Each structure stands twice: as structure tokens, then as C-alpha cells.
């Protein structure tokens, strides 16, 4: 148990604005560690972290692994392709077996919403949600916040999430985090891909990408999962690009300089124009860099610490 953040990081919905700011502020000094020749600090030496990935992931898993290694933790990767259905017994048994080997933390990616919390309630180790179904992907939300904050204050910023909001845990974590930090949030996409009742969260809805571009300071362009087309949510990829694609021509008509985010992996020519992805407004690679720093901060804040000894130790150090 850490006094700073609690046992687990499951989502941004359950965090207070101050907790979110604490993670972002803590990420700042961690950025510098990745710029060093020796990219390693000993703070999590001796901690064992299991990356438990029930869904394929390259970027998030590598980012977590870099974060863990740069803090000197020992890491084990368990990738279990297969069922997207939450098989409670299997998941808990896997985790309990890992705990029997004396681990300290689990980073979990799972296809079922609520899987991370399900696990966190049943094991003693710290749990970090690396994406659970359509629910949340908190470290992605945090790295998006950090990337926006690097360029402009979040409070008062107008941020529009574009695309498949309905199926997107990235969108959900973004919306919670942005609202808590005082941003104005909108969503834009085909009616079939926007959740019903999204307006009740205080999220404005744009049906046309041109309107969203005219309103926004920041666009967070979501990946269009290609299987959504087969499922009939969008008629065709070409049609989607024609109506909702974030293109250079559309951005050229924006009344102000926009910041373009994308959580990756990108479908160039589907949700985003290559010239935009590689252009001056894009902070997509900054997001990747910030992802490592934010994950280092989350790991650091959750790890270690026995508060009952903290009082006794206060008089002991140099400060």
C-alpha cells in the first residue's frame, strides 16, 4: 500500500483530480531518465512485476516493460492469446499462482471490461490496468494528458475525441481525465460509433468533423478498428475517410493551430491523413515518449512504502 495513490491503478474515473495531477507531476522528472546515457535508476530494485497480457499489444507492453526496466524492476511477460471472455477462475488462478512465486505487481491487459478490478480485488499485489475491454486504459489517458499539458494548459482546453468512441477504452479514460482537469470535451464520429447518453457526461457531440475542427484546440483521433466495418458500424473505410478523415485540407480551414493526438497504431488514410500524422501539428511520437514516463510514475507511486513505518523513519534521513 502506498500512501500516495492506493493499491491499484484501474481507471481515471475513480481518481481525484489531485491524484491525476500527482501522476503527471511525477512523470516530469522521469522524462529525463530516458534521456540519460544510463537509462536506469534503482528505485524498484528487487521488485518483481508480471505483465499479464490476454490481448495482443505491442506498444503498451513494450512501453510498460521499458518503464519497469528503467526503474530496475525484474519483469516477466505472460502473454496469453485466446478468449476474450472473462474466465474468472482461470484469470484468478493464474494470478494466484504468480503470487505464490512472490511477485509485487501485475500489469494486466484483458479483453473484458472490469477484468483489472476483478483481479485487484482478489490479489494482494498492486494491479495496473493496461486496458480492460471497452472500459478504461488509464495510462493511455494519462500520457495523452501529459502530452497536451506539455503544449498548453489542460484547464479550458477544447479537446475533441474523434472516431469510434463507443468501443474505445482510450476515449473513456481520456474523457474522464480531461473533464476532471477542467478541459471542455467533445466527441465526433458516426452516430453508430458514439455511445448513447454521452452528452450526460458533459461531452458535446459533433456530427461533422468540420464543426469539430472549427471548435477544438486538440483532436484525439482514435483508431478505427477494421473489424467494425465487417460488423456494419461503418459502410466502408473509404467512406469513413471521406466523411470523418482528419485531412490536411480540413485542418487548413481551422481557425487556430490544432494539436493532433493518436493513440496508435494508426490506419493511415482511414482515420488520419498521412500528411497530418507526419505534419507539424502531430504530437503522436511525443505521446509514445511520454507513455514511458507516465508508466514509470505510476509504477513508482504504487510501489513500495509501508506507511506504518513512515512516521518512525521521518526523523532518520538527511531530510
Amino acid at each position, binding site marked *: 500500500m502506498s500512501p500516495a495513490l492506493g493499491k491499484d491503478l484501474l481507471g481515471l474515473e475513480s481518481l481525484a483530480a489531485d491524484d491525476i495531477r500527482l501522476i503527471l507531476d*511525477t512523470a*516530469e*522528472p522521469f522524462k*529525463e531518465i530516458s534521456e540519460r546515457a544510463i537509462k536506469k535508476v534503482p*528505485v524498484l530494485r528487487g521488485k518483481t512485476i508480471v505483465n499479464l497480457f490476454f490481448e495482443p499489444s505491442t506498444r503498451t507492453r513494450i512501453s510498460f516493460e521499458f518503464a519497469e526496466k528503467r526503474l530496475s524492476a525484474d519483469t516477466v511477460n505472460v502473454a496469453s492469446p485466446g478468449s476474450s471472455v472473462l474466465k474468472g477462475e482461470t484469470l484468478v488462478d493464474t494470478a494466484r499462482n504468480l503470487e505464490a512465486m512472490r511477485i509485487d505487481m501485475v500489469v494486466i491487459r484483458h479483453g473484458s471490461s472490469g477484468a483489472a478490478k476483478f483481479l485487484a480485488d482478489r490479489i494482494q499485489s498492486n494491479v495496473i490496468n493496461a486496458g480492460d475491454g471497452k472500459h478504461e486504459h488509464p495510462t493511455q489517458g494519462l500520457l495523452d494528458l501529459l502530452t497536451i499539458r506539455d503544449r498548453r494548459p489542460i484547464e479550458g482546453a477544447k479537446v475533441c475525441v474523434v472516431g469510434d468512441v463507443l468501443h474505445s477504452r482510450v476515449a473513456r479514460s481520456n474523457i474522464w481525465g480531461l473533464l476532471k482537469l477542467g478541459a471542455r470535451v467533445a466527441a465526433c464520429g458516426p452516430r453508430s460509433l458514439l455511445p448513447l447518453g454521452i452528452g450526460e457526461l458533459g461531452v458535446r457531440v459533433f456530427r461533422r468533423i468540420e464543426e469539430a475542427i472549427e471548435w477544438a484546440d486538440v483532436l484525439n483521433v482514435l483508431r478505427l478498428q477494421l473489424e467494425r466495418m465487417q460488423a456494419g458500424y461503418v459502410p466502408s473505410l473509404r467512406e469513413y475517410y471521406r466523411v470523418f478523415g482528419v485531412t490536411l485540407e480540413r485542418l487548413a480551414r481551422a481557425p487556430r493551430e490544432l494539436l493532433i493526438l493518436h493513440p496508435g497504431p494508426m490506419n493511415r488514410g482511414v482515420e488520419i491523413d498521412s500528411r497530418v500524422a507526419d505534419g507539424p501539428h502531430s504530437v503522436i511520437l511525443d505521446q509514445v515518449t511520454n507513455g514511458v514516463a507516465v508508466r514509470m510514475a505510476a509504477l513508482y507511486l504504487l510501489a513500495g512504502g509501508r506507511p506504518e513505518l513512515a512516521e518512525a523513519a521521518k526523523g532518520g534521513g*538527511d531530510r
Partner: protein
Amino acid sequence: MPPEERQLLLDDRALARTLLRMAQDIVRQTPDPAHLVLIGVQRRGVELAARLAAAITDLSGAEVARGAMDITLYRDDLEVVGPKPIVGPTRLPVDLDGRPVWIVDDVLFTGRTVRAALDELADFGRPARVGLAVLIDRGRREVPIQADVVGERVTTSADDRVEVFVRELDGRDAVELVHVVKVGA
């Protein structure tokens, strides 16, 4: 809060005099002041390093490179105290290899901070020599570390606090010893 007694150890003029003497000591012990690097330990050490660097430039004419170091991530007591929420920045803008490097901190107490600073320094390079300059040495070491340059030595008990105030952060220059009065003991 138990009652406290505050005792002024250094006022602003005494602090300025002490820093000047420390700067002279550092120059005397550094054969090659032109390559000197002063690294302040966050937070107050950074301000003290800046003042020492200015004084050394006045004395020797040499420009002194400066850096700042936060040793939180190198501490040996994360398990005990839990994460210290805000970690300060580490900025070491110059290559340390082969240069005389001085670590500057406000108070030397158990020595554990300096131990951590030495570990962190080793990740950045291999200085020709590492010195330690502290404004106050309050004794009660827990590891075998001593300073090369000391502004003032003070005898303290374990519960005492030595508080250093600097203009840049606190609006005034002073060093105070805070003695906690045990009641009913």
C-alpha cells in the same frame, strides 16, 4: 504538535560569510578550477551551489559549470517511507568525465543522502575527483561519509531539525536549529 525551541545558527550576513569561506576552501582544494562542476542536491543544495559558483567565479575568474540532482530515486528507504510524491529534476548539463566535481548540500546528517548522490553520480560519468561541500554538518552519521568543506559544525540530538532558508525559495537567508521539547517525559 509538541512545543519547539528555535535557535538562530546563522543570520543572512553570517550565511554570506560562511559561503564565501566555503568557496575559498573549494578553490584551494581544486587544482583546476576552470573545469569545476558544482552539483546541488535538491532542493536547498541547488541554491547554495549557485551562490558558491558565483563566489568562485569572483575569486578565480573561472566560469563554474553547475548541475542539480534529485536523489529520491536512489534512496535506500523507499520501502520504509513510501514514495516521496514529487521528485525534483536532475540536470547535469555537462560531461562529468575527468572533471573535478563537488556535491553541494545544505545539511549533512546521516550521510545517506550523500551515499545516494554518489550512486547517482556514477550513472552519469566518472569525475576525476568528487568532493563534498555542506553548509551545516550536524553529526550523527549512519554511514562512513565525511565532508571536505563544512560551513558550520553543530551538535544536535536525533530529534532536532536543522532548517536552512534561502532567499530564492523562502524569502530570507537563515539557518535555524529546531529543538523539540519533550513534554511529560
